[in-house]
């Protein structure tokens, strides 16, 4: 009998707190009931308005870190750049990765995959694969 594998955490960084929370809620709802989900929204700027807060991102990453890695998805400009700057300065937990994926579709894929116990590489691949789903 082995201990359960720790889940990968997911952080959703948006310019808007409402967007980050709603996407986290949608992704969680789509994992189905009863599963463990480690997803944390990090939306809005340092003043609570639209923008990006590095402190919110860092605390969200710490809160979903169970040692299996953290997948970070970001929406636009400063959200992406701030995550990169934090990673460059080792200010996010070990095993944190910025995932190159569409924000909403990628978040759903990442959260569902993570909730099934997949490792960080599989979570990243699932999120990135959302780019390949054409809509027309």
């Amino acid at each position, binding site marked *: 009998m082995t201990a359960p594998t720790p889940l990968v955490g997911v952080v959703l960084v948006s310019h808007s707190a409402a967007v980050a929370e709603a996407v986290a809620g949608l992704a969680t709802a789509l994992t189905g009931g009863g599963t463990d989900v480690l997803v944390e929204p990090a939306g809005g700027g*340092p*003043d609570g308005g639209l923008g990006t807060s590095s402190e919110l991102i860092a605390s969200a990453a710490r809160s979903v870190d169970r040692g299996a890695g953290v997948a970070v998805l970001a929406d636009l400009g400063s959200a992406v750049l701030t995550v*990169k700057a934090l990673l460059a300065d080792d200010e996010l937990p070990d095993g944190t990765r910025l995932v190159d994926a569409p924000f909403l579709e990628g978040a759903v894929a990442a959260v569902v995959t993570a909730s099934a116990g997949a490792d960080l590489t599989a979570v990243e691949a699932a999120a990135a694969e959302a780019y390949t789903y054409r809509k027309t």
Partner: protein
Amino acid sequence: MNALPADGPEIDAAFLRRWLDTAADVIEREAARLDDLDSPIGDADHGGNMRRGFIAARTAVGQEPPDTPGGVLVAVGRQLISTVGGASGPLYGTLLRRAGKELGDEPAVSAARLRDALKAGVDGVAQLGGAAVGDKTMLDALYPALDALSGALDAGASTADALSAAAAAADTGATATIPLRARKGRASYLGERSIDHQDPGATSAALLLNALSDTATGTAA
């Protein structure tokens, strides 16, 4: 009386703290203009964001003054990343932290060392944002400023004169963004509509370099 000595490694922590004071003052004074420049091609918050960042940086450095020039730059960069809230935070934050780390623990550095450190920082910005000169970004002020700084120092100019040349080149570079079409950031979505507007990031970069020049000549307000 705050002017630099004529020779020797003259840039120390006190010099860069004076730069920070001057920069925070000029950003405060020009915040509304930066917002106005950001209004037609961005979301009109560049000035407000920069003001928030530089006030936080001045407060943090005032409370725990670093005793090396590298330490001041790293501290300011860190504050900008955590408080600006827009793309200029991680970009300027990366510039200053990278430059500060290049300077290491030295208690004072020459203008040539500062130039090399700033070059490393600006290269870090270009890498982070994936932009180049001509894309209508802060790099359009920063790279010409570095070139002018290098040229002046290589020609034997004093630190104050070299920084003055850098500031003038940054001003020219910022103005030269007016006819450019944005190729990076949100302004790039506007296509042709981004033309005929001066880039707010290049403008704030020129303000920061003018603050550095004013610090060196002792003309800072």
